[in-house]
């Protein structure tokens, strides 16, 4: 409302990570292929945060890099591949060598854990899948008896991250955010977490958000910090802002084949750079051009003036 005097939540990503991410935290950096907050992962690496429990349905390169940089003690996941390419070599090696703890789910049971956490529920049910092997190894899977049929129903407990990091297309200074494209588990991660760091491609006036309230999937009331971080998601992408850098996803498969390759990458692209702006500039005009997103605008809808 016009007279509202809310103080802004805008702070730098550096300060947001410093304030809300601590050694040993359970972190959920969200985004299914889309909107993965790489800039936040890099900032966590730069700050040398340790012993994190890294939860994500698809750890993707962001957690591979964080594991390589020594930030993680454990991963919680449902798919540790490099999508469309192959392995996540660092996560895989950590598990194979017994140096990284892990806790494993299927996609739906992982997301159901977030749904339970976001909903304030002690568990979420799912139908039988018959896949007993994983359930045998992960005691978080339990069963309850359906009181209506007497059958067994699988349940999973809530996942309640200490911190969720959620990248969005546009947000106001309070963290009321419009998100579109692949939604993944963005909304659930934000509601399930104790603290939420929101990174936004654009900070817009509250009026833009209020012009389309159905698009506001993340409300400011669950957001602690709002960081303006354009191109935060590269090499993942932000629908309508820049393309997925498939070339880099392929390149990482090579880079991550040797420890030297990875350390050289981290030095050049993480440690030796101050922030995402420097990273994006360093990528250079050719990459910018290659990842350019053209324009396909949504047809407007009328909310009416009442």
């Amino acid at each position, binding site marked *: *409302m016009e007279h509202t005097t809310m103080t802004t939540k805008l702070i730098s990503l550096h300060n947001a990570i410093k304030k809300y991410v601590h050694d040993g935290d359970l972190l959920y950096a969200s985004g299914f292929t889309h909107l993965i907050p790489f800039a936040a992962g890099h900032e966590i690496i730069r700050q040398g945060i340790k012993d994190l429990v890294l939860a994500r349905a698809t750890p993707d390169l962001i957690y591979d890099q964080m594991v390589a940089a020594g930030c993680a003690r454990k991963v919680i996941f449902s798919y540790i591949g490099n999508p469309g390419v192959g392995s996540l070599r660092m996560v895989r090696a950590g598990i194979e060598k017994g140096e990284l703890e892990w806790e494993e789910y299927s996609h739906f049971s992982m997301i159901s854990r977030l749904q339970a956490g*976001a*909903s*304030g529920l002690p568990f979420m049910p799912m139908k039988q899948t018959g896949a007993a092997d994983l359930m045998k190894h992960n005691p978080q899977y339990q069963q309850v008896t359906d009181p209506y049929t007497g059958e067994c129903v699988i349940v999973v407990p809530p996942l309640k991250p200490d911190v969720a990091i959620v990248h969005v297309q546009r947000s106001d200074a309070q963290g*009321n955010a419009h998100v579109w494209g692949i939604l993944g588990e963005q909304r659930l991660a934000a*509601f399930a977490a104790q603290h939420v760091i929101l990174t936004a491609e654009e900070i817009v006036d509250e009026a833009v958000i209020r012009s389309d*309230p159905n698009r506001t999937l993340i*409300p400011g*009331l669950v957001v602690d910090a709002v960081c303006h971080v354009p191109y935060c998601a590269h090499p993942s992408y932000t629908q309508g802002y820049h393309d997925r850098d498939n070339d880099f996803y392929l390149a990482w498969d090579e880079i991550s084949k040797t420890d030297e390759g990875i350390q050289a990458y981290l030095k050049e692209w993480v440690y030796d750079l101050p922030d995402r702006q420097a990273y994006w500039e360093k990528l250079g005009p050719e990459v910018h051009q290659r990842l350019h997103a053209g324009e396909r605008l949504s047809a407007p809808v009328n909310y009416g003036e*009442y």
Partner: protein
Amino acid sequence: MEEIEYNPQELMVVNAARLLRDGDVVFVGVGIPNLACNLAMRTHAPNLQMIYEAGVIGAQPARLPLSIGDPSLVTGALSVCSMYDIFTLYLQRGNVDVGFLGGAQIDQFGNINATVIGDYAHPKVRLPGSGGSMEIAAWANRCYIITPHQKRRFPARVDFRTSIGFLTGGDARAKTGVRGGGPEAIVTNLGLMKPDETGELVLTALHPGIQFEQVQENTGWAIRQAPNCETTAPPNPEELRILREELDPQRIYI
């Protein structure tokens, strides 16, 4: 000092507004609770946030809505989501600080009946039922009730517990495992009632000019007066100006 005139509705709105805190996230209904929230936002609680069970967060209605599903609540709101989401992600999750409740009967322990007068299976009067109030009463961090003070509205026992206050008192509420704190105050046109340490509603404040006897006459149990029972400050001119000029100029609710 000139005597300020106000009516019982204005008195209840003003006193309810004063209970709200800056930053509160409020699950709000139409009518009096809506006015109370808006008044609080325009006075001491500019950061209060209103949520409607229809799925609306941060409404900026250009008019006073008749129903909680009015289109004017949607246009210009901060966020609109499904009903399942509003009850899970917001209310059940614990993101709601305050719920407003109402009903045909409120009893000695703040339990509310909005379901039936008489027997459930063969009701004398069939009321609208819970709506969202069963969950609001249980899961909002604290609840307020705003209602005229009438004996039939305040029986010792409700005919049916649609939503719970402190049940039979003592640790009865805590033992159910509900997450919220329960009713924190009942605002009437005579004064304020709050639960004591056993969950029993006691009179904690009288409005200016009201006597305890009036409260007792209009209450269905032997109501106790708190030792430190206060007198509420009358609505001040600014509160009344906002109410009358800005919030309800057509005097629909006040």
